[in-house]
């Protein structure tokens, strides 16, 4: 009786771990900003825009590029390169995000690709290189380049 019970829980356990394994992989959008690759979970990404005209908002900090008209909604845009203290390059595109019900966009140099990254391969950032926006780093599966994994929640909290 009790053995049977154990067997069942074991079965459940393995099913659970299978499931966990499935959800362990998450889709990430890889983009390039000032020659560094960043990965951001696609749950945050709404769309990618090219050639948008951004209206500057006076008196806002430099890293706020301004606002855009996204189908009638006014959406704030942050220049990701200025946010990290880099000088923006000519080439740019805007990634529209929705983080915690807040819409916003970031200006980056270019969008690279979409990849699946397993949570288990994301490694912690060495303490000396820690950055408040970056939650970990990893090597792109099947590739050689290394990406910085961004913490989406931190992006909406940058003013703090």
């Amino acid at each position, binding site marked *: 009786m009790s053995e049977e019970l154990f067997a069942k829980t074991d079965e459940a356990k393995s099913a659970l771990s299978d499931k966990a394994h499935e959800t362990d992989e998450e889709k990430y959008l890889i983009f390039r900003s000032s020659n560094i690759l960043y990965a951001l979970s696609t749950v945050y990404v709404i769309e990618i825009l090219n050639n948008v*005209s951004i*209206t*500057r*908002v*006076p*008196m*806002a*900090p430099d890293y*706020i590029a*301004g*606002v*855009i*008209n996204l*189908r*009638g909604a*006014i*959406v*704030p845009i942050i220049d990701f390169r200025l946010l990290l203290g880099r000088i923006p390059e000519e080439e740019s595109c805007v990634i529209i995000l929705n983080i915690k019900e*807040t*819409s*916003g966009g970031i200006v980056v140099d270019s969008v690279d690709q979409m990849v699946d990254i397993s949570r288990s391969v994301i490694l912690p950032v060495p303490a000396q290189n820690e950055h408040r926006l970056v939650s970990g780093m990893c090597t792109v599966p099947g590739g050689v380049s290394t990406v910085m994994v961004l913490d989406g929640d931190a992006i*909406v909290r940058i*003013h703090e």
Partner: protein
Amino acid sequence: MSMNNDMLEAYLFEMHSLLEQLDDLVLAAEEAHTFSQDDVNEIFRIMHTIKGSSAMMEFNSLMTIAHRIEDLFFVIREKTMDAISDELKPEMFDLIFQSIDFFREEIEKVETNQPLSTSIDTFLDKINSFSAKISGEAEDEPADEPAAPAQPGSAPTAEEAAYASADFPYGLHVYFDEGVGMENLRAMMLINSVKDYCEESQFDYYPPDVQMNPETANFIIDNGFYIRFRTAGDREEAVPAVRDNGAVRNWQVFDAPEASPAPAQKAAPVQAPVAVEPESAHVEEPSPAPAAVQQAAAPTAAQQSAAKQAHVKDSLISVSLSKLDTLMAVISEIVITEAQVTASPDLKGLKLDNFTKAARQLRSLTDNLQDVGLSLRMVPVSATFQKMKRIVRDMSKKLKKETNLVLVGEDTEVDKTVVDSISDPIMHIVRNSMDHGIETDRAERISAGKDPVGKIILSARQTGGEVIIEVIDDGQGVDDDAVLNKAIRQGLAQPGAEYSHKDILNFLLMPGFSTNTEVTEYSGRGVGMDVVKSNVESVGGTVTITSERGKGMTTTLRIPLNMSIMDGMEVSVGDSIFTVPISDIQQIFKVSDINVIQDATHGEMVKIVDNFYSIVRAKEFYHLNGGADNLEDGVLLWVESGDNSFCLFVDELIGEQQVVVKPLPDYFNNYGIKDYGVSGCTILGDGSISIILDVATIYSSQNS
């Protein structure tokens, strides 16, 4: 509170509107010193609804009080207001106002999730003792009430109809809950609900004089209450009324033939229908004759009131404000998109007759749509104004300053958000007028040649894009010296400096100013007119005060009709485009260097008519790149908003445009840019965004 939220919301909405209705009604009635029969019916209906809904929501305190007031009005309804002597009337009005306040307090508790009152006994006692007074008085009423002769003419026939024949053979015998109280009235109510199912001529009841004679309560307690129907079918139909009545303990069906050889305790009631012969009927009845006469007349009156009570369901629905906001947002999008489509650069140089025609049609339709959309949010100010009646009434009683409130232009419509934000300011100003304006001493008013009764006029009117709301009192006006002294004491004014009458009045609007040395219940709580000012300014309005010593004071609120669409002037500075509200622009002009006056700190000024105004360069103020540096190369906008007036220097004018105001994303609240006059933006016809400059804020941040 684990209650269904929708239900609670609906309940609160209903309660609020009922209480408002009740307040208006009682105020009007108090003015007339009596309730009309319609009023009584209406109050009865409202109390009934409050009782019912509160019971459903299990708010016992509300239910109990409503129930008692309902009972009270039931008595009044049956006896008419004549039954209440003049001495009792003020007490009655106070009692009803108290109960309205009680309901409000309880509702507030419901809204704030606090437990409801449990100790309502004192209030209940009050109502009960008042009920007793009325009932007591009414007992001798029929005897010395000369109103009775008015009816006797119709009495015999009505009586005949009610009692003439024995053809009400199908009976219901009803017992009420033990100790439920006022059994006779409950019987009457039961009869009223039976009327919903059955023609009044199709049944009668025993004792017949339940609504007039409180003694019948004892009979009903002992013997039960009898309802008799002409046909079995009617009885069948009326059963739900009896079954659903909360106070009925049990009931049974009986038929006349088997009822005649009734058991002893049934003898009296059963005798009545059998013994009654057409003409001599009421002689046999146990109750005194006058009561019978009144009884005959009463059902007809009751029937009439029942007919009136079947009030027309109004064709209004309540819609949540957020839905309207969404609708407005969509409409705004359509307006913008329409402009984008019809003025698309792709169409340049094409000859498109049909397209142009359709586009013109589309434009007029979107204009219509916009008007309709805006009108949906417009509500009359009457609800807000009506509330002031109550405040003036209460305060004139309490402060013993007899004052009339005159309402003018109550049906003026303004945007819902505007109504919400002016409600408190108006209340504050009215209280101020009552407290500080109207003289405490009647003799003072008489010697000043004024009507001994004070007067406050609350008026609303619409002019162009603004609503003007004025509170005018004919009190003692503002004492300039007293205000100035106070301002000096508060450190708002410099001793020895000269201040004009207008300057002194402006002190009243400053934070922390309150002229009354004593704090009263109503005003002088440390918050004052400055709150009024900031509330009104939050909806883009302004406050001004004028006053003449001894004649009174006028407070004027000017509020833009609606805030979401406005006329704007597009201006450019470098490659940025800004929108300045046209309503803020006084004049646009070019200036030559010789007219610009420099001060020691490199500030610039320009003289317009008789005054000097400082120049604010948009480029420097906002640290913009590009744009003209030489004043002669650009234009000056002389802008004025509230008390602030200055000249804004920009590169050039682009044009005038009607724009839809959109707030900047909340995200920007973190950077305090609102303090620099950047609070909103708008989408231009070509889809680009223009920042709207809030002139009043630019000025204050320039100065700080």
